[in-house]
């Protein structure tokens, strides 16, 4: 939306446009822009105070369950000194919100939080200016509190002051903000702002969008990855009432007036495919990673220990979904994505149209975990809708979600080290094949180290996942730290403390160990204790776990986890994220793995792919460390990295078996 359009759409009031040069640079890469489009305006948050006093904040960030909507509302409320209820956030709507790269990398809290604070602080000062002029009193005599501006006996709501005026201010990024130590709204457990819509079922997710005349779309996928369509016959499907078949090269699909007809029609499409020979399956993929690695390293000085990490699926409980609607040359798409502007770009590129003609709306979505960066369902819906001339819904099934989305990369990690006689680490060598560079670097104080990521070929489509490769790298590193502690005959906690110089890392490790009762733990048969620590994306994590191994069955009995990410924005929601990440991490640690062969996924259903359930839960103790002196970092990802190595180390403690593959025990543990 252009500035001049703002007041036309919203009526009068105060508008604050935040200029952020750093964001403009990051966003300005030409590849993401459509043809002949100007560079994105360097605005990263807009704020409007309407004549009724309603505050609306516009941000390109999105809500996928991490409670960014609540946290950013708190940020605006804090600086405006207005009730949380008076603030509304418009998120991830490409026609209304400023350009944003996407909601990933735990950047909403450290990047967007301060920007919204600055916009809100500027609006507050504009209100003070207005009151000062209207009442002819000094600015210093004016206070703003609880959504009202007051000077002596005079008092006015925000809307009264801005009434009938159209005021715009563009601000630099240097506006002064309330320090965390003085926060009154941020830093408190404000409840989820749209929680009532969730518990009543009123919230409309992308999967729930219905449009007049909307058709239900299906896509005919190949039997295996990379197959090409050789022959196609949709005539039998077209005989079904209301069914329209669409074929564009390798893309074949249909629409129908109801979902059952769509499903039946899909079943009678006739197609022949030319399939490709698979390069690897889930059993030999680790050798494949090594074989196809770039810049493979020379032999390590010490013989390495090898860890492997399986491909896993995000399994967002709301599968990918989109509704597309064309009005002449204009396309509107509702879809669940972490990158609405990226999806807009995908659509405008595919249809060779200006980005101005594409409107992507992102309703708060049924989770993503890094799995919803692309616009697959949106593009399918838009292609079908264009072909049939009606709005089309393209809601993926679970099996489609677990086959045609993308996966967390699998990987191989080689680690080796040499210890000094005093138990400090003299040399460290660490090589990650394929899974990624996040969290590659050891947080321990080691003078001589070599840490490398070696990209490989991948047989599956792979991309982002909560924490990215930090989970794999922490798993290998923290399990190997346990191996070294064992070699050095030192307690795993003492061994780590001996090698830590970072005070924040030490603080979380000690906090988790104390909460867990690490030093007073009592070893009994079949029980084991393990711990792990690390840091990533500005967050520090330590996790202790107790497991039992009974007849080969591993059960995580309890876990204590400590997390520190600077000044806490919302303690309850942070605790929820830390617990939730730990719970999700149990799946990847113990049993989640995508099995594939012949370019096919063998377990793309929840009956074949186990995710954590109620009875997998340990007792969880969560210790949050609030550092008001440190800017808030994101918290949605890093708390996942500690649990897998903590469990692996606890299994070793219980059984003497060193398990070096994630998942650790998909079918239990043999020989225990």
């Amino acid at each position: 939306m252009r500035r001049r359009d703002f007041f036309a759409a919203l009526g009068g009031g105060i508008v604050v446009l935040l200029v952020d040069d750093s964001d403009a640079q990051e966003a300005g890469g030409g590849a993401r822009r459509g043809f002949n489009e100007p560079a994105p305006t360097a605005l990263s948050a807009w704020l409007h105070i309407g004549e009724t006093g309603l505050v609306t904040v516009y941000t390109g960030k999105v809500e996928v369950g991490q409670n960014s909507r609540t946290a950013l509302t708190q940020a605006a409320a804090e600086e405006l000194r207005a009730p949380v209820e008076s603030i509304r956030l418009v998120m991830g709507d490409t026609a209304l919100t400023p350009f944003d790269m996407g909601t990933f990398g735990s950047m909403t809290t450290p990047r967007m939080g301060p920007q919204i604070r600055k916009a809100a602080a500027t609006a507050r000062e504009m209100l003070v200016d207005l009151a000062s002029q209207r009442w002819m009193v000094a600015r210093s005599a004016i206070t703003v509190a609880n959504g009202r501006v007051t000077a002596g006996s005079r008092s006015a709501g925000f809307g009264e002051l801005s009434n009938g005026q159209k005021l715009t201010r563009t601000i630099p990024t240097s506006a002064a903000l309330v320090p965390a130590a003085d926060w009154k709204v941020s830093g408190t457990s404000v409840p989820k702002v749209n929680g009532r819509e969730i518990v009543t079922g009123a919230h409309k997710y992308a999967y729930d969008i219905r449009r007049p005349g909307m058709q239900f779309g299906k896509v005919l996928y190949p039997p295996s990855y990379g197959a090409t369509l050789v022959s196609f016959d949709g005539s039998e499907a077209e005989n079904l009432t209301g069914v329209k078949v669409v074929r564009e090269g390798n893309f074949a699909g249909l629409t129908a007036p109801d979902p059952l007809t769509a499903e039946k029609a899909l079943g009678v499409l006739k197609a022949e495919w030319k399939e490709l020979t698979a390069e690897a399956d889930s059993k030999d993929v680790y050798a494949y990673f090594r074989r196809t690695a770039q810049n493979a390293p020379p032999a390590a000085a010490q013989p390495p220990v090898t860890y492997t990490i399986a491909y896993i699926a995000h399994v967002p409980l709301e599968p990918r979904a989109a509704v597309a609607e064309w009005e002449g040359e204009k396309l509107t798409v509702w879809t669940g994505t972490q990158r609405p502007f990226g999806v807009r770009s995908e659509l405008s590129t595919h249809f060779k149209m200006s980005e101005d003609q594409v409107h992507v709306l992102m309703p708060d979505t049924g989770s993503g975990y890094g799995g919803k960066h692309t616009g697959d369902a949106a593009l399918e819906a838009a292609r079908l809708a264009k072909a049939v001339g009606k709005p089309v819904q393209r809601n993926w099934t679970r099996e489609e979600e677990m086959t045609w989305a993308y996966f967390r990369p699998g990987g191989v990690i080689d680690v080796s080290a040499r210890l000094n006689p005093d138990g400090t680490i003299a040399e460290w060598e660490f090589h990650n094949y394929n899974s990624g560079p996040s969290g590659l670097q050891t947080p321990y104080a080691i003078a001589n180290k070599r840490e490398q990521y070696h990209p490989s070929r991948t047989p599956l489509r792979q991309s982002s996942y909560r924490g990215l490769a930090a989970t794999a790298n922490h798993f290998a590193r923290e399990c190997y730290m346990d191996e070294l502690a064992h070699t050095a005959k030192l307690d795993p906690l003492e061994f780590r403390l001996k090698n830590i110089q970072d005070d924040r890392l030490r603080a979380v490790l000690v906090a988790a160990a104390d909460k867990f009762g690490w030093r007073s733990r009592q070893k009994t048969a079949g029980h084991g204790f393990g711990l792990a620590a690390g840091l990533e994306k500005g967050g520090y994590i330590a996790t202790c776990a107790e497991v039992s191994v009974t007849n080969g069955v591993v059960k995580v009995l309890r876990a204590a986890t400590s997390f520190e990410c600077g000044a806490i924005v919302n303690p309850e929601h942070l605790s929820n994220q830390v617990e939730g990440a730990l719970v999700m991490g149990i799946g990847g640690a113990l049993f989640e793995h995508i099995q594939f062969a012949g370019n096919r996924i063998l377990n793309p259903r929840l009956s074949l792919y186990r995710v954590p359930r109620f009875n997998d839960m340990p007792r969880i103790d969560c210790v949050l460390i609030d550092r008001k002196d440190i800017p808030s970092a994101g918290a949605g990802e890093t708390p996942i990295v500690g649990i897998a190595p903590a469990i692996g180390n606890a299994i070793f403690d219980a059984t003497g078996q060193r398990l070096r593959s994630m998942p650790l025990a998909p079918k239990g543990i043999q020989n225990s």
Partner: protein
Amino acid sequence: MARVISRVTELDVNGARRRLDADPERTLLSVLRDDLDLTGTKFGCGEGQCAACTVLIDGVPTRSCLTKVGSLAGKKIVTIEGLAPEGKLHPVQEAFLEADAMQCGWCTPGMILGAVGLLRRTPHPSESEIINGMNGHICRCGTYPRVIAAIRSAAGKGGRV
């Protein structure tokens, strides 16, 4: 010979008789969402593994993705939209809000109806009864400990429906 299939023309949903015209082989989930615009009931897997689609049928939590709409004559169906009829939240809904027992919220309607059904059968469940009773429900965001806390807190107040 074409078989004569009697269409489903009426369902008792949330205390009201709803008129419709549906193939009896269609799932209750699809009819609720696509014909009656009751989208609070969620699709998660289509094979009864996740319980996001849970509704109450004559008070019993039931997977609507596996329930053919032709099997529901004379049955009373309650969806999440029917749990707070006059805008007053059910104690289980209140308890979920109080315990922050959600993140993305996709599993929440099914969780809440599963919990209402559990508390009807077992008004004061132990922790292991909650775990066993709710184990069919998946929360991928991992809010299980909070759901357990919410159910404990709602215990004794949850049998209204």
